[in-house]
Structure formats: structure tokens, C-alpha cells
């Protein structure tokens, strides 16, 4: 579904990715893990078009999407739920979801989708007329995910969905992610909570200083001595 070959990109003259190869098949749930500043967010931003790739190739469902603007890429079926949730704080919960469906013409189906997510996240339904800025961090994360799904994407990018959330909420978010994958949605999960991320994904890539240094089945990586040492803090 998504095939990336020797991708390079960065910010201005500062290069952040040095030839990344990555692949996601339809229906898969894949983790991308690494420490702060390793290039995880830069990678997501480059694929979703927020940053221009300086070289390499990104192909989605057989179509090269390098350097398309983000608004075109999301319409092809890649939804990016950004780090820090980035809900529109001054707009209502409802408007946030409507914006997620921007460009869709099927009004009735949009309504149904909204009802579906109000059911999945009841707190959003209760607060649909409130400004998104008044929600708690966990609620904003649910809103950000629901907003990303309003486009009916084929592939969902989640950037640090558990960041800054209370443990009980973290479990809930991870459960939701797994359930979404079961409906057939492909997911690329970027996480600092390495253990949890490896537990709910099928495969994983480890990125360090802009390069993929390990890849394999998540269960195998979870058992690997090196990963345990570097990312799980075990000696």
C-alpha cells in the first residue's frame, strides 16, 4: 500500500532523514519507534506532504506522491493525526469533525460517521457544542483521532497518541487503535511508549539519527536484547 524508498528530507539546510526505506501493506499495523530527535515526526510529515522530500520515492497504492501538497495526499487516503493533537481549539468539537471531512460531498454519510464516533467516544458526543480547547488532553486526543478518521482514510498515521496522558487513558487509546486496525484500517504508529507500541503492532521499524537501524516482527523486537536495553530501560 505504502512503499518508501531511500527517502531524504529535512528542514532547510538541516537534513533529518538519510535514506529511509519503509513499507506498509494493506491492513497492517506497524510501529515506528526511536528516541527524541531520531526523525519519526519528520518522516510522517514528509510522507503527508508537510515537508518536501529532497530525494527518494514515496508511492501510495502505486502512485508516486512525492511533493504533492498535503491537501491532495489526504484526499488520496492517508490521514495524519499530528503530534500534540493539534485540534482547532477555538472551534467546537463538531466543527473539528466537520473539518476532518472537508471536501467530502456525501452529507448524509458524514452525519452517520459523526454519530459513529460520538458512539465510539461518548465524551465527544456530550461535548460536541463545546470549544475543543476546553477538552482535556485525553479528550483532545480522541477528537484528533476521530477527526482523522472523518476522511475515511485507507492509512492512518498516529504521532505519539499516548503522549502526556494518564495511564488509564493510555490503555484506552491503545485499545481503540487496535480496534480500528481490526476494521481493516492500515495504521502507522509512532510512539515513545515502546513496550505498548510493540505489543499492539505486527511489525516495527526502529529509527536512529534519520536511518532505519532495525526492523522485524514486533514480537521479535520485544524479545531482542538490544531493543530491551536501548528502549525499554532494562539491563
Amino acid at each position, binding site marked *: 500500500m505504502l512503499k518508501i524508498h531511500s527517502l531524504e528530507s529535512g528542514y532547510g539546510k538541516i537534513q533529518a532523514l538519510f535514506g529511509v526505506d519503509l513499507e506498509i501493506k494493506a491492513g497492517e499495523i506497524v510501529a515506528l519507534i526511536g528516541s527524541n530527535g531520531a526523525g519519526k515526526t519528520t518522516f510522517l510529515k514528509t510522507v*503527508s*506532504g*508537510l515537508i518536501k522530500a529532497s530525494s527518494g520515492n514515496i508511492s501510495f497504492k502505486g502512485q508516486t506522491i512525492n511533493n504533492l*501538497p*498535503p*491537501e491532495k495526499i*489526504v*484526499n488520496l487516503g492517508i*490521514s*495524519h493525526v*499530528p503530534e*500534540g493533537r*493539534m485540534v*482547532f*481549539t*477555538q*472551534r467546537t468539537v463538531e*466543527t473539528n469533525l*466537520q*473539518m*476532518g471531512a*472537508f*471536501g467530502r460531498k456525501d452529507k448524509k454519510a458524514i452525519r452517520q460517521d459523526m454519530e459513529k464516533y460520538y458512539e465510539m467516544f461518548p465524551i465527544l458526543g456530550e461535548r460536541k457544542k463545546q470549544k475543543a480547547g476546553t477538552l482535556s488532553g485525553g479528550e483532545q486526543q480522541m477528537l484528533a483521532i476521530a*477527526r482523522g478518521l472523518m*476522511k475515511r482514510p485507507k492509512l492512518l498515521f498516529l504521532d505519539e497518541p499516548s503522549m502526556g496522558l494518564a495511564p488509564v487513558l493510555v490503555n484506552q487509546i491503545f485499545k481503540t487503535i487496535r480496534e480500528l486496525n481490526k476494521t481493516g484500517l492500515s495504521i502507522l504508529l509512532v510512539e515513545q511508549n515502546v513496550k505498548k507500541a510493540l505489543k499492539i503492532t505486527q511489525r516495527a521499524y526502529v529509527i536512529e539519527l534519520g536511518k532505519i537501524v532495525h526492523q522485524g516482527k514486533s514480537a521479535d523486537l520485544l524479545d531482542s536484547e538490544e531493543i530491551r536495553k536501548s528502549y525499554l530501560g532494562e539491563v
Partner: protein
Amino acid sequence: MFLDVLFIGIMIGAIYTLVTIGYSMVYSILKLMNFAHGDVYIFGTFICYTLLGKYHINPFLAILVAAVMGGILASLVEIIAYRRLRSEQHRMISMITALGAAYVIQNCNELEWGNQVLDFPSILSAHTFHFFGMNIPLTQIIILSIAVGLIILFTVFLKYHPYGKAILCVSEDIPTASLMGIPINKTISMVYFIGGMLGVFGGILYSTSYNAVSLSMGFRGTIIAFTAAVIGGIGSLSGALVGGMFLGICENFIGVYVSTSYRDPITFLLLIIVLLVKPTGIMGAVEQSKV
């Protein structure tokens, strides 16, 4: 007398609000001082003047054509002078190109229409109404209604139309808005177009009420829009309304009860006082930065 002055003040305030909306919207999205704003609206007002005076076109059609041309010019300025600089870190650069664009348009206006005060044809009837002891010419009532109608129309568009909501989201966060599939360039062009159009409507209404149009009203328009936006709280619609009304009403009271020559000095003194007391403007909120 007092009520008469207040009424005219409110009318001028509504016109100023129209002129301020475009300026303030552009700022809220791009954090750019659009110095060309006043020159664009006076261009549209001149177009209307020519269509009415020279070609005797139906006033409604003339106003519409002038407003659309003003809107097109505003979006052209954005595409030519601002768009490529949007990603630049230094806002000073686009501020300079904005000044450049302002001077180009101003000088073109001067070549075509000169720098004298021209008689703007009166479109509306001169009938006068008397009620509650006020003597209000029908013209002023119509002008106020049109201005208020346009403000309401734009508010409804912003609140309920998908593209209106998109404008608000783009002004909150451009990258995230683009991840929603909102076409950023198209949305920004639209903001300039609508802002330019509302400005031209304001310019025409102003010129109609004073039966005059001149080149210098363009630069004054930029200053008025800037001041009203800052007094009210820059970047918000309610700020534009409060700031526009504040300026319009103050100006008219000072003009009538003190002297027209003290109008601008006192108005701008008030600007300084308001900002010293509340630096974000009357309706302004403190901009929240990411923690």
C-alpha cells in the same frame, strides 16, 4: 443633535468595520500588515466613480463590478507579492513587498484619476426623515443598513459555510488545516478576495455619504483599518466591529463638538490610551503559545 451625531457616527463606524474586516482577516491568517488594503479599496471606489459618472451604468451593477474588481486586485496582490514569501521566517520581508504593492497601486490610481478630490455621484435619494427629534437623511439610513447587512452576511458565512469555517481553521493553524484537506492557497486567495470586496463596498458607501472620492482616502483607509483592528483586537471579527464603531463614533463626535482638524490627533491619542490600558485591544485575547 446628540442623537444625530451618534447616528452618523454609527454609520461611519459600520463603514469602517467593512474596511477593517479584510485587513484584520489577512492579519489573523498570515500575521501580515497588508499595506495595500486601502489602495485596493480606493481603486474599486474609483472604478465605481468612473462607471457611474462616465458610463452611467445602473448603480447596483456598477457597485457589484467595482467590488469584484477590487476583490480580484486584492487576490492578485496576494498571489504576486505575498504568496512566495509565506514560508519565509522574517515577516519584515513580506511587509516590505506589501508597501511596494501599495505604492504601485497608489501610483497607478493617481495616473488614472489624479490626486484631486472628485465629486462622487450621489446614488441615493436626498429625502430626510424626522423621528425622535432627529433629522436623518434617507441616504444615511440606507448606507447604514447596507453596511450592517454586509457585516451580518459575512458573519453568517464565516460561522456556517464550510469555506467560512475553513478560513477560521486556517487562521488558527495552517499546517493542520492542510492535513484536513483544506486547500490553503485557495482559502487565502478567498480571504483576500472577500476582504477586498468588503473594503470596496465600504469605500463606495463612504464616498456616497460625503459625495467625494480622492486618492488620499486610500492611504487613510489603510491607517483606519489598522487602527480599528488594533483598538478592537486584531484578527477577530468582533474586534473589527468594536474598533470600527469606536473610531467612527469618536471621529464624528470630535468633528462636530471640537473641530474637524482635531479629529485625527484626538482619535489617535485615544488609540494610544486604549493600547496602554489593554495592549491586546478591547476584544483581544492573549495569544496562546504552545507549551
